Each structure stands twice: as structure tokens, then as C-alpha cells.
């Protein structure tokens, strides 16, 4: 039970470089994730997906960004100006801020100075994620309300109900991990998984966290917030051009963040099984590979499950996930106390 963190001194310029690097990695990965999702979704439906723009269709997102950027930026007369413009900004900022938390590796020795391969490693790791998740919800809510449209408003209302219900289960699912690791620092949690990755002892927590993550990121089968069949596009119905891209960007980034958190907390972060210890520079790629596996699972689920009905969504969240998560936290606490005494 150590709470002692490596007191890591990094020069200010290292921190700026790290911040820029994380932002550019996020910006670089996102288009690839979007192409990857569309191509994999195609494979699940016996088709290729985009393969015309550039080699293997890799330039498809570039073409789409150019298309969106050249669209007219219009807004409804009923919308509330400042809030309407603020909403996508909030979404983006919170998503990038949460991405800074994902540890891509341990403290590495780069040119004689010790650098942590992560944006920040606060001693309250998961809480930081949930804090930014809660602020990100303002992006959805303000966007939906300030649009002054009924579809947007309905989408925002659904987002409010859904995110609040599932955030509870998501948080409770993590408590088991935190108790087992004895730390809230994400790097410490990864270190604690040296013996066994937590998705084995915390299997229930892992399942609950995964289910809740689908709801938190508005992914199918919990994409009621966007439900294109009934709500056009939910909270961002009235957005167009680059502002809509900002919302989509934040949504995919949130998917990456959730994958990163799941990899860190349950799938051993940068650790490899069977006692393989690669050099430090491989660590970020291990984390990225694990994240991509998790993202593939997201896409697999999207290709499989239809959207839930609203009452099913609520009863699943409150009647199944929440009791499971509570029970998991309780049992873990008892077991940990029993083992340590």
C-alpha cells in the first residue's frame, strides 16, 4: 500500500513539448481511427469501406475535412449565440484534457533527463477523468439547448439522463481497481498490475466499465443521444461545417480516452504478459496497440447490436450495472481487507 509517487521534476519546456506531442498524436490518430472504423464496419458487412481516396482510402478523412471546412457556417435564428459557439469548444477542450492523462509508458530517460511518457500523472487519476467527463457533458447540454431546436433539445435531454446514470456505474466499477491497486495514480495502478492484469480479478468491474463506457461515449447500442433515425443527429443537429466536425472529433477522442483508461486500469497499460520486458521506447506502441484492440471491440459491438429503447437503457443502467458495480466494489473491499489482515 504505497501512495508515494515518483516526485518527477520536468523542465517547463519539456512539459510544453509533451503537451504539443500529445495534441498532435491525438490529431494524427483520430482520422486513422475514423477510417479504421469505417473500413472495419465495412468488413463486418461483407464490403470494403472507403478505398477510393488515396492509398487504401487513407485520405478519406482529409477529403471530408476539406468538404466540411468549405461548408457555410449557418445557425438557426432561435439559437443563443455565445453558448452555441462555446459548446463545441468545451467538448474539444475536455476531450483533449482527458487524453493527457492516458499513460503511454513509464518514466523514461531521454537525453539524460527523466521524462514521464504521459501528459500529467495526478494523484487523483480516475477522478480527473470523471471531472473532465462531467464538464464535457456541458458541451453536449449547451450545444443541444443553445441550438434552439427541438431535435437538439431532445438529444441534450437524453444525453443528460444517460450520462448521469452511466457515470455512476462507471465510477463504481473503477473503485474495485483502485482498492486492489491501493492508489489513484494511473502509473501506480499499471505498476501494480505486474503480477496479473486487473481484468482477471476485476472481471465484473471490467464488464461494467466497458458497458458504461459505451453509454458514456454515446456509442451503439447506447447511441440514443444521436439516434439518427428519430433525432436526426441529436444535440448537434443544428451544427454544420467545422463545428460539427469539432463535435465528431471530441466524440472519437472520447472513445480513445475511454479505451486508454480501460487499457491502463484493466489491461495492464504498457506491460506485456509472459514476463516480456521490451525497451522503454516500445511502451507507447504497446499502449496504442491495446487501445486499437479496444476500439475494434467498440466497432464490433456497433456492427452487432441494435439501439436500445429508452426504458431499456435506463433499466439496464440502474437495475443491472449499478447493483453489479456496487457489489463488485463491496466484495473487492472485503477480499482486500481479508487478505491484508
Amino acid at each position, binding site marked *: 500500500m504505497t501512495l508515494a509517487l515518483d516526485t518527477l521534476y520536468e523542465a517547463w519546456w519539456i512539459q510544453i513539448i509533451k503537451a504539443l506531442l500529445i495534441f498532435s498524436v491525438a490529431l494524427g490518430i483520430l482520422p486513422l481511427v475514423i477510417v479504421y472504423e469505417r473500413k472495419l464496419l465495412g468488413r463486418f458487412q461483407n464490403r470494403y469501406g472507403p478505398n477510393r481516396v488515396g492509398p487504401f482510402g487513407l485520405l478519406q478523412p482529409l477529403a471530408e475535412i476539406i468538404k466540411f471546412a468549405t461548408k457555410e457556417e449557418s445557425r438557426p435564428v432561435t439559437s443563443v449565440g455565445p453558448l452555441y459557439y462555446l459548446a463545441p469548444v468545451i467538448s474539444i477542450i475536455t476531450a483533449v484534457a482527458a487524453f493527457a492523462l492516458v499513460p503511454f509508458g513509464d518514466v523514461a530517460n531521454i537525453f539524460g533527463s527523466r521524462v514521464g511518457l504521459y501528459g500529467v500523472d495526478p494523484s487523483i487519476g480516475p477522478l480527473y477523468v470523471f471531472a473532465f467527463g462531467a464538464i464535457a457533458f456541458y458541451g453536449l447540454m449547451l450545444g443541444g439547448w443553445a441550438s434552439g431546436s427541438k431535435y437538439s433539445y431532445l438529444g441534450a435531454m437524453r444525453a443528460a439522463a444517460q450520462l448521469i446514470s452511466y457515470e455512476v456505474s462507471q465510477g463504481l466499477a473503477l473503485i474495485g481497481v483502485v482498492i486492489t491497486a491501493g492508489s489513484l495514480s494511473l502509473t501506480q495502478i499499471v505498476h501494480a498490475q505486474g503480477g496479473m492484469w486487473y481484468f482477471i480479478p476485476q472481471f465484473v468491474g471490467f464488464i461494467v466499465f466497458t458497458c458504461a463506457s459505451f453509454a458514456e461515449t454515446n456509442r451503439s447500442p447506447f447511441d440514443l443521444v444521436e439516434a439518427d433515425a428519430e433525432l436526426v443527429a441529436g444535440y448537434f443537429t443544428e451544427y454544420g461545417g467545422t463545428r460539427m466536425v469539432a463535435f465528431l472529433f471530441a466524440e472519437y477522442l472520447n472513445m480513445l480516452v475511454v479505451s486508454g483508461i480501460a487499457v491502463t486500469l484493466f489491461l495492464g497499460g504498457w506491460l506485456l504478459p509472459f514476463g516480456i520486458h521490451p525497451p522503454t521506447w516500445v511502451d507507447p506502441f504497446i499502449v496504442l496497440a491495446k487501445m486499437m484492440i479496444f476500439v475494434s471491440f467498440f466497432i*464490433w459491438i456497433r456492427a452487432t447490436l441494435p439501439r436500445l429503447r429508452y426504458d431499456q437503457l435506463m433499466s439496464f443502467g440502474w437495475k443491472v450495472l449499478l447493483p453489479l458495480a456496487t457489489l463488485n466494489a463491496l466484495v473487492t473491499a472485503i477480499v482486500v481487507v481479508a487478505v491484508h489482515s
Partner: protein
Amino acid sequence: MSWSPGDDQIVVQRAPAPGAAGGTYRAFGETLRGLKTTLARVAEGVRTIQYPEEKVPVYPRFRGRHKLHRFEDSPDNGGHAGLEKCVGCSLCAAACPADCIRVVAAENTPEQRVSAGERYAAVYEINISRCIFCGYCEVACPFDAITMGHDFELSDYSRADLIFTKEMLLAEPIEATPLRAEGE
């Protein structure tokens, strides 16, 4: 006046609702079954035909764009080799339900012999944008001069370009449409 359903009402038989455990098991079991189904689609591979590069071969009796024919270079053609089969009788134009064929006949002369008969088609135009590809022209023709070909890529940028003249109909298509082999 309200409608009375009468006596023949059907009582719907429903299975008992699953309990909490049963429902959870059923939900997760069915989810796993669904995941298996979609993964099997990945294993199955891609069924797309990459159209402009790959084409679906057409059947021999496929009714595509029309062709006009000449006599082939063979001894049993009675010295007609190279002449047009069309004699300008306008039966195809009469048979055409869409009224898209225009034929203007002219007399053959000993100096200028175009077809095997007395007359030939001086003008033979098909407005492809009006054609419904029914094949009646082919049936009406007494000399098998017009047949339905296999070309189906007929889009163009202006309507005027879709009026096919005699020369265009007589010429071989620039790109051959793949034909389905016997038994395929």
C-alpha cells in the same frame, strides 16, 4: 358506428417473462451469439465487385444498346459481304413502343450500293435516352439487321450525345462488355 371484433378474438400466448438472472443470461447469451454472427461476416470476406474495374458479366440474351450488322465475309452470303443488312423498311420504327427509332430510306444505285436489298437506310437514328430496351425492334426486323447488344454503360453529359447514328450503331463498341460463359 363502432366496429365489433365479434367472437373470433385470438388470445395471444406469451412465454413467461424471464426473471432477473434469466433475463441477464438471455441478454448476454444473445449478445455473444450476435457477436459471433458479425465476426463470421468478417471471416466470410468481401463480396463487393469493384465496379468500374471489375464488371459483372452479362447473360447472352441481355438486352443492352442496339447494334446494326453488316453481312459477314463468307461464301454463302451470295456476294453481299460487307453490305449492310438493313434495307430501310422502318418495321423497327413501327414496332418501337417508345418511338425512339427514326429511319429515312433511300434507293440503292449500281454506283453506290449500301445494302443487299433495293433500298437502304440513309438515316438510322436511335434516341437511346428514350429507348426502353424492350427488344421489339430486334423481333420486328426481317433481316436480323438490328440486334440488342450487351453494352449498358450509356450515360453521357448531354442529351444530344445520346442520339446514336447509323455509323455509331454499326461500329464495334469501344469497350467490350464481359459476357457470361456457358453455365456460369
